[in-house]
């Protein structure tokens, strides 16, 4: 191929119209409250891990909704399950339980529970 010195740049636009997101649907089935998040950021602001790491539960939830789990799952390794986020969440989401469920649905295969088709 001739090298013109430039190439096609993949689009940076988030395309969400046809996102198939069976993992998130499974998460939603187990943890219906995940859909209640209003992205207020209280969890992130209070997070014990967030001061030192990138951990942000708000971003985790949003990224999973958008089917972008690859970018975000490593964050969860920093979570200490301390539950501070649960104390401040105005939507009353059981965040610790949610984080554990995320691990079950999205975690490495050997830790993952059987996901229903």
């Amino acid at each position, binding site marked *: 191929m001739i090298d013109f010195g430039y190439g096609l740049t993949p689009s940076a636009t988030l395309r969400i119209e046809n996102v198939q997101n069976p993992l998130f649907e499974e998460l939603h089935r187990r943890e219906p409250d995940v859909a209640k998040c209003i992205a207020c*950021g*209280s*969890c*992130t*602001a209070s997070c014990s891990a967030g001061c030192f790491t990138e951990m942000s539960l*708000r971003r985790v939830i949003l990224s999973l909704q958008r089917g972008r789990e690859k970018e975000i799952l490593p964050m969860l390794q920093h979570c200490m399950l301390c539950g501070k986020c649960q104390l401040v969440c105005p939507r*009353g989401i059981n965040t610790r339980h949610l984080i554990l469920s995320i691990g079950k649905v999205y975690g490495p295969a050997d830790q993952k529970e059987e996901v229903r088709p």
Partner: protein
Amino acid sequence: MSENVVVIGGGPAGIEASRRLRDLGYTPILIEKEPVLGGHLARWDRLFPDGVEARSVLDPMLQDLDGIKYFTDTTVSSINRLKDTWVVKLSNGLSAQVRAILLSTGFDLFKAEKKEEYGYGIYERVITNAELEDWFKAGAVPQFEGVHTIGFVHCVGSRDEKAGNRQCSKVCCVTAVKQACEFKEKHPEVTVYCFYMDLRMFGRKFEDLYLKAQKEHGVRFVRGRVSEVSEDIDGHLFVKAEDTLFGKPLKIKMDMLVLMCGMTPADGTPELARMVSIPMGEDGFLVPASIVGAPCIAPREGIFFAGTSTGPKTIPETLGEASAAALAIDRYLKTTARR
């Protein structure tokens, strides 16, 4: 002799409805538990969106009470159904037998101390929106020395399942922006922040006020809910939130914090609802026969609503509803023959 109608709650809704009922030829009996009429309007200094004085709205109403029998410092002791009438007994020993009752008991401000993580009642420099109105009204902000940075915290006790109030209180976003502008007008050197989840500037001219806050006053808007507040040894406040647009947790030192307390159902309303056997909504506010089609009419004969007893409203909305309720009562009394 003109027919009596009992109106319970002497705030903007109750006063306005009483005046309209009087104009329609009835004798309203207006009952107010506090020593003065006016409800929350009597406490506010200036009103959004234009900053008119609250007094300029309330005073003309209070000067036009001829033909209205009103009782302050008075509550309802009992209400009983007798044929097609309601027998209302008052704490002052009087009683009235009427065919129609209007419930205009309004709202209570959310009790800020319930949100312990914001430190109201613990830290001196954490105050409420209503207290700031008191200060504006008194013409001076006490403890003002050394205040360089102040923050407004939106949604205090609203949109908060933990606080037991899921609803949006509707008026506090625009009140915060109004108070932020007023503060900047008085003290331009102070840096003012608003911490919000969504800015609900729904009404006419509200967006203009927001624009003014940004452009003229340089109010700094941070999109993130305050998660907690702490205090240092000198009394400075440390506020934690996430700057959700930037995607980073943030911590900021403040000299003063104003909590935008929302509207909760008035304390005595459930008891009144029980007396006339009507249900309260899950959110604690009164429930009309149809929230869209008949917002002033209760699902019970002869009971009517106006104002914030059925949920958060602005003053113009409250006054409009009060007139509508007076008309609904008039129609009810004219179309149901006395038995």
